[in-house]
C-alpha cells in the first residue's frame, strides 16, 4: 500500500484517462431527484452534495436480473449457451462510499460459501473500486457500529480522501488500484503528509456488535420481532437497496423451443419467498420474516461466514415507507 497526493486537475486528468482506456465507469449521478450509480463519461456528470445514493453499488457485481444460460432446440439438437465470464466488461466504480465497498466481502461470502458463483466472481474480477472516504453522514449512518468507518478501506482498490484544495489523499490498496494509477501516473505526486483522519466525519458508535450478537443468540422466540415488525408492509425495498442482501430467485423465460434461465433479485421479506408448493409457509408471518432479516445479518452470517451482513450504510432505513429504522431496532435489541 502506498499513499500519494493528487490535485484537483490531476483528478480530472486521471478520470479522463480511465474513461479513455475503454473501461465502463459507474458513478453517482443526480437525476430524477435521486442520486444513483450510472454509467458516466465525464467527471462533471458525477453528483456532489449528497449523503448516500438511493441504491447500493451491489448491482455492479450482482445485477438485478441476469441470464445464467440460454438454449435453443434446432433440428432436434439443443444448443446451450452458458454465461460467458469474458462478456463482462472491465468496470470502474467511482466515488463508492466505504460502506458500499465493505459490502463486497459479505456479498461474496454468500455467493461462494458452498459452491463458487461463476457470475458474481466474473463481475468482481472485472471490477475496480475507487472509494471516497466520507466527510459527512446523516442520522441513518452507523458504519462505525458494524466494524466500519468513514475511512474504511476494506473492499477498495483505491481510496480518495478529498482535501479542501480540491485535491485528494490517494491510498493505493491493491494491484488493481496500481493498474488504475498507471493509466495516468504523472498526476500522482508525493504524499504531503496530511492526516486523512482530519477530514473524516465523526460518527459515534451506536451499539456494541458483540452485545447484539449475544442478545440475538437467545432472541429467536422473543416477542421483540412482532413488536418491531407490526408496521412492516412486507415489501422488498430494504433488501433491494441493501449492499449485502443476496436473496435471489431463478426464473425460466421459455418461448417454445428456446429460452433462458434468469437469476433476479428476491427478498426474504416477501411472503412468497419461503412459500412451499404444498401451501405451507415456514415463515408465515411478517414478524418471522423480519426476524430472519435481522438474524441473518447480525447472527447467522457472523457465525457461518465470519462476516457481519450489514455495513451500516443506512439505506434500508431511508428507503422504508414506514420508517422501519434498523439502527433504532438493533439499538433497542442491544439494550434489552
Amino acid at each position, binding site marked *: 500500500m502506498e499513499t500519494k497526493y493528487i490535485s484537483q486537475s490531476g483528478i480530472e486528468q486521471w478520470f479522463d484517462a480511465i474513461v479513455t482506456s475503454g473501461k465502463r465507469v*459507474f458513478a453517482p449521478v443526480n437525476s430524477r431527484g435521486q442520486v*444513483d*450509480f*450510472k*454509467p458516466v463519461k465525464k467527471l462533471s456528470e458525477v453528483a456532489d452534495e449528497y449523503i448516500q445514493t438511493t441504491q447500493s453499488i451491489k*448491482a*455492479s457485481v450482482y*445485477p*438485478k*436480473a441476469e*441470464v445464467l444460460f440460454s438454449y435453443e432446440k434446432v433440428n432436434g439438437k439443443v444448443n446451450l449457451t452458458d454465461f460467458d465470464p469474458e462478456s463482462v466488461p472491465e468496470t470502474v466504480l467511482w466515488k463508492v462510499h466505504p460502506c458500499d465497498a465493505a459490502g463486497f466481502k459479505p456479498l461474496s461470502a454468500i455467493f461462494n460459501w458452498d459452491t463458487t458463483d461463476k457470475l458474481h466472481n466474473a463481475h468482481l474480477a472485472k471490477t475496480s473500486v475507487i472509494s471516497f472516504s466520507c466527510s459527512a453522514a446523516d442520522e441513518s449512518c452507523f458504519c462505525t457500529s458494524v466494524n466500519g468507518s468513514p475511512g474504511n478501506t476494506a473492499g477498495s482498490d483505491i481510496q480518495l480522501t478529498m482535501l479542501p484544495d480540491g485535491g485528494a489523499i490517494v491510498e493505493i490498496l491493491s494491484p488493481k488500484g496500481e493498474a488504475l494509477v498507471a493509466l495516468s501516473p504523472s498526476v500522482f505526486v508525493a504524499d504531503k503528509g496530511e492526516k486523512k483522519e482530519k477530514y473524516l466525519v465523526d460518527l459515534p458508535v451506536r451499539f456494541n456488535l458483540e452485545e447484539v450478537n449475544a442478545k440475538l443468540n437467545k432472541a429467536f422466540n422473543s416477542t421483540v420481532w412482532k413488536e418491531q415488525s407490526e408496521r412492516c408492509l412486507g415489501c422488498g425495498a430494504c433488501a433491494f437497496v441493501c449492499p449485502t442482501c443476496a436473496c435471489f430467485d431463478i426464473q425460466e*423465460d421459455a*418461448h417454445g423451443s428456446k429460452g433462458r434461465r*434468469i437469476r433476479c433479485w428476491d427478498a426474504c421479506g416477501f411472503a412468497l419467498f419461503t412459500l412451499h408448493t404444498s401451501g405451507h409457509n415456514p415463515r408465515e408471518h411478517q414478524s418471522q420474516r423480519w426476524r430472519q432479516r435481522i438474524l441473518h445479518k447480525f447472527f447467522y452470517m457472523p457465525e457461518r461466514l465470519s462476516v457481519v451482513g450489514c455495513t451500516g450504510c443506512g439505506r434500508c432505513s431511508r428507503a422504508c415507507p414506514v420508517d422501519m429504522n434498523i439502527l433504532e431496532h438493533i439499538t433497542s435489541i442491544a439494550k434489552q
Partner: protein
Amino acid sequence: MSSNTDFEPKIIAFVCNWCTYAGADLTGTSRLKYATNVKIVRFPCTGRIDFLLLLKSFAQGADGVIVSGCHPNDCHYTSGNFHARRRWIAFRSVLDLMGVDIRRIQYSWVSAAEGSKWADLVNNTVADIRALGPYAEYQKVADYLEKEGYNEEA
C-alpha cells in the same frame, strides 16, 4: 405508395367463439378474399380476453391487434361484451397515458352473419398498420434484459 410497401404487418386477432370466429368462418366459406397477415386466436367471449394478452402480442412481434366479438345485446353469455367494452375504455386510457400506440389495437363487433365485415375489418386494419409501420418501438424493449447490464442505457 409509401416506403412501407415491403412491410407486411403481423396482426393478431383475438375473437370470440360465437360471433366473430363464426363470422370469419363465413368469410372463408363465402370465398371472400382478405389479407393474410392476421393470425386468429379464438376465445369463448370477449369478456375472457385478458388485456395483457394484447400487450404480450406486441412484445412477441405483432405490429397490430384486432379484438372482436358479438355486437351489444348479442353476447352468448348475455353481458360478456359489455364488460369487455368497459375494460377496453379503461385499457385504452391507461395505454395512452403510458405512451403505447393505441392506434394499433382495433376493436370491433363482427357477428356470425358478417363475413364481409370481417374481410373489410382485416383489410382496413392491415392498411392502417402498414401505414404506421412496424411497432419497433415496443419490440425493441421487449428483449431488453441482456442490454440492461447495470442500469445501462439501451
